[in-house]
């Protein structure tokens, strides 16, 4: 699949809605001129007001987010507050504006022949799986979805996808344990028929990579890293692969699990 290229430069997108799902906030915006993103692609987001610049302090750089959902010209982003940039983004209200660059990077590709998608997400990393599920469902396939969250504050994120099996670290919803427990069960039963699509925290992705490796199951992993630019300029978002370091922003963020030396990206999730 050829990647969808982004318009050159930053553009204004009015915020149309703000929704809370437990600890998560979904910000919707209207992107009148951009192309429809592919599932797994991402955008660099900046709040138009109160975002560094000039004499300001942090946040200074844009923040990278996989698109959660695209409905016509409306883009949805899933945000969890973890620092000054995500704090500002979760405060956005209708009437304010986002500045965005995107869609960027390589998204998910269709499963190999004779395999069906199996979606595995953790925490805020469930975002690209929602738009991927939308596309798979539109194509007539009902793919199993396994989602993991740390506690009852975060489990409401599961409602953003359809028919998800849930695991929570504290047992407050669904399976008491890791989402990778559910994955092992699925692969024990159907490992010869599925291809895994996963996004989540580094430790989860590393576990997914190991489990899929043990079962001989192909996996596409959407990784995260701190990024300054998102379009290959800063060389800041590298991950180690069998071919050496690659830039997640232009060679990912979706990478084949077999390419990776490790899915634990230094400095991610911070």
């Amino acid at each position, binding site marked *: 699949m050829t*990647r969808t*290229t*982004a*318009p*050159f*430069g*930053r553009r204004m997108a009015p915020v149309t809605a703000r929704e809370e799902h437990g600890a998560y906030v979904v910000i919707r915006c209207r992107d009148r001129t951009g192309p429809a993103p592919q599932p797994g692609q991402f955008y660099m987001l*900046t709040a138009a007001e109160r975002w*560094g*610049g*000039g*004499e*300001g*302090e*942090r*946040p*200074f*750089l*844009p923040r990278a987010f996989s698109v959660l959902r695209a409905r016509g010209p409306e883009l949805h982003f899933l945000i969890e507050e973890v620092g000054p*940039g995500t704090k500002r983004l979760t405060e956005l209200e209708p009437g304010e504006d986002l*500045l965005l*660059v995107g869609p*960027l990077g390589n998204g998910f590709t269709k499963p190999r022949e004779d395999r069906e998608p199996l979606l595995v997400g953790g925490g805020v990393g469930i975002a690209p799986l929602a738009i991927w599920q939308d596309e798979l469902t539109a194509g007539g396939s009902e793919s199993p979805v396994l989602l993991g969250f740390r506690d009852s504050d975060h489990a409401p994120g599961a409602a953003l996808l359809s028919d998800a099996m849930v695991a929570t670290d504290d047992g407050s919803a669904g399976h008491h344990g890791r989402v990778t427990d559910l994955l092992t069960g699925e692969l024990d039963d159907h490992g010869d028929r599925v291809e895994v699509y996963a996004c989540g925290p580094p430790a989860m992705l590393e576990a997914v990579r190991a489990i899929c490796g043990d079962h001989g199951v192909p996996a596409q992993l959407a990784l995260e*890293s*701190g*990024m*300054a*630019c*998102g*379009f*290959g*300029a*800063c*060389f*800041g*978002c*590298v*991950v180690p692969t069998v071919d*050496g*370091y690659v*830039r997640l*922003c*232009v060679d990912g963020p979706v990478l084949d699990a077999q390419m990776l030396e490790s899915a634990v*990206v*230094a*400095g991610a999730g911070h």
Partner: protein
Amino acid sequence: MTAEFCGLELEHPVINASGTFDAIAARRAFGDELIERFPFSAFVSKTVTLEPRQGNPPPRLWEAAGGLINSIGLPNKGLAGYLEHDLPELARLPVPLIVNVMGFSHGEVAQLVHAFAERDEVSALELNVSCPNVETGLTIGADPNEVAALLHQVRPLTGKPLIVKLTPSATDVAAVARAAEEAGADAVSLINTLRGMAVDPRTGQPWLGGTTGGLSGPAVRPIALAQVHAVAQAVEIPIVGMGGVARGADVLDLMRAGATLVAVGTESFRDPAAALRIRSEVSELLANTAVFDRRSA
């Protein structure tokens, strides 16, 4: 708003800082629109070294107050890889190409300069001297004598313009600039990033994989102005000024301090097309402002 620089007729005075814009990767992200609206009047490519480099282990970035600390470590394909893969693509850009090179000894720099000396695709060379000379242990760009010795060795190798990218860590940056001019440099560019560090709040250890990194962005803008001003008092050759340029007014300030061209760096990370906006702000400001020209004064 044309600009004359070392014999090059440029459409405007705004270029990119080396290592802050990868035109090949940007073409993949933005397609042909990048070429149609190319933001810089000349393109400076990322530092090329003799041998390929993987660069530093991640994490490589830290957002600082009004800026960014990067510890990238000059990853590149090496001279042979650059000549085979990057140069043919960069030669197709709609603007002149300036190649930035760095060596770990004067001999390595000489090999790099020699390799580009006869390449028609290359309009000028920028020498990154912010690195230690492995033979002397001295940072080449921190010492006027080192810079002069380097220029004496490489100047005879090419008729192409040689731009010396000065390091802001020199005790007397103007003295280094003067040494470069006297030894035959055609221009100087400044400032490079300033050495900085960040601590991981969770572990108390240095955050960056390379321990320290280079600080850039608006935080360094006043330092850039002061150093460009100091260098402009010391040399006659043209100056490429850079450091925290985010607006047209910053370009004008650097030109008033003595820069002929101005480079945009970190601001392109925030908006890939930032230089287009900055350029049009400069046009508007110039329509209403007289720029102090240090030569006609």
